[in-house]
């Protein structure tokens, strides 16, 4: 663009300032949508409750001291991982596809809002809602279902980076897939099945070790399997590590695969995201 004298030049640092303003706006509007709150925010909690109640008589093994591991303890890491996927990929994929077709993005395209501020708003919304969701899940698991939480700071450190890396990757992938549905109306029909299939093959609802090897190999390409494994490393007793497919939590690969997907997502967003498709 040629340099022209503008009457009031845009101040520096506005991308971050507007990003922060977008986060507040996004979080506020997120909780005003009843359906999103139920289907993405509370869904993992509903599932955890169902599993805990349905399998209340069942044992999911014992820890090193011989204490019984109940259904809530066994499913807590899986539901936390599902929450990451729902809050990021599913929520943003559907949300942005809707904004694309209802004209919200077209309006932004006519304002001096930087695309990066919009992304910061979306990722920030996922971070805030994902954090609240995780706190709710862990809180209910501990208080209602008597799950004994890990006490070692090492576990919580692992939780912190798995959560943070997972939630940001999931959010970026949500922005990336939002371009797939052709209309806002078809968005849920396109994106929810993707999220659902991933949950079934990644050890969220079904035990990963019991899946056929070829399906394990397919699931291992995608990040959800690794996020779930990272969460198991945090919340399951250490003697469960040997039950993993590789016989180890393998946190290095958790970081690597999730990180690669983060980069892929960022590249796809950079290359494909447009406020509007010109000439559509």
């Amino acid at each position, binding site marked *: *663009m*040629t340099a*022209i004298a*503008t*009457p*009031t*030049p*845009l*101040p520096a640092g506005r991308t971050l*300032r*507007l990003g922060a*303003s977008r986060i507040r*706006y996004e979080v*506020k*509007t997120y909780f*005003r*949508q009843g359906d999103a709150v139920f289907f993405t925010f509370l869904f993992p909690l509903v599932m955890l409750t169902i599993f805990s109640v349905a399998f209340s008589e069942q044992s999911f093994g014992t820890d090193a001291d011989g204490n019984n591991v109940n259904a809530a303890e066994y499913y807590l890491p899986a539901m936390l991982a599902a929450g990451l996927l729902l809050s990021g990929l599913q929520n943003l994929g559907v949300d942005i596809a*809707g*904004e694309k077709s*209802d*004209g*919200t993005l*077209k*309006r932004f*395209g*006519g*304002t*001096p*809002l*930087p695309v990066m501020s919009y992304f910061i708003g979306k990722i920030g919304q996922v971070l805030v809602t994902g954090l609240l969701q995780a706190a709710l899940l862990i809180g209910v698991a501990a208080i209602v279902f008597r799950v004994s939480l890990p006490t070692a700071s090492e576990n919580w450190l692992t939780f912190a980076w798995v959560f943070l890396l997972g939630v940001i990757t999931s959010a970026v992938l949500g922005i990336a897939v939002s371009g797939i549905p052709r209309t806002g109306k078809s968005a849920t029909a396109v994106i929810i099945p993707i999220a659902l299939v991933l949950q079934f093959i990644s050890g969220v609802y079904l035990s990963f070790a019991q899946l056929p090897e070829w399906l394990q190999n397919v699931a291992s390409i995608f990040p959800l399997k690794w996020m779930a494994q990272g969460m198991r490393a945090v919340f399951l007793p250490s003697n469960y590590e040997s039950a993993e497919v590789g016989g180890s939590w393998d946190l290095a690969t958790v970081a690597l695969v999730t990180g690669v997907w983060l980069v892929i997502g960022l590249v796809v967003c950079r290359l494909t995201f447009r406020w*509007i498709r*010109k*000439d559509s």
Partner: protein
Amino acid sequence: MTSTDPVVSVRELRKTYGKFAALDGVSFDIERGETFALLGPNGAGKSTTIEILEGYRDRSSGEASVLGVDPGKGGLDWKARLGIVLQSTGESGNVTVREQLAHFAGYYANSRDVDEIIAAVGLEEKSKTLIRKLSGGQRRRVDVALGIIGRPELLFLDEPTTGFDPESRRQFWQLIRSLKSEGTTILLTTHYLDEAAQLGDRAGIIAGGTLIDIGRIHEIGGTEARIPLVRWRENGVLREERTSEPGRVVASIVDRLGAEPDDLEIVRPSLEDIYLGLVATHEPARELENAL
């Protein structure tokens, strides 16, 4: 760019979709502070033109300059100088009128006062209502408010008063007049010819992708099209006569009949009459209606 350069300048603008030319060589200028009304039937190319100038569409050929910048390449500081009221909006609007305006005000370096804007569009009583709960006309007023919150130098209004009741439309005209008095340049499209006549300084009439006439609102269509019509009833038959001397014609009728003629009126063609005449001669078949 100097202050005397046109704010918008378009030369031989063309936009083709396959073999179909939505715009086929349109040229016009809009001077600083001017309100220019782009008129034409649906599918004539109004929105294509305005969206090219807003940077939403690429042109196939021709030249376009908006505030001295090629609209296909305008950056954020260029957008900060524009106000855009799009033709259609369908946002879910899970924010209140006030929240939305306060949020958008933050995008601009020199935005207007939020409460002032809310008052200017007449939504004081709805400022704490969620936008999705507003009526169509009220939402449209939010669109207009969002278009002017950043104190734009150039304001695009694409059919801004669709869904307004007559009172809101009058109030909207008042708002636009005050923007004009502040020196805002405005590009307006509308189907309400009285609106164009009220607000516009100049108008361009577009049909079939070409500009069929352009000029000052009170001159468009030429003097011929503005010749008044005298209409009266004589022996039960409605008669009319086109004349540039309606007073004399009426006097002669009165003389001839020796009485006051029935149903006498002198009609000056409105912008709408002139517009319809121009479009009808140019576009006998409305096949373009379905083309976009």
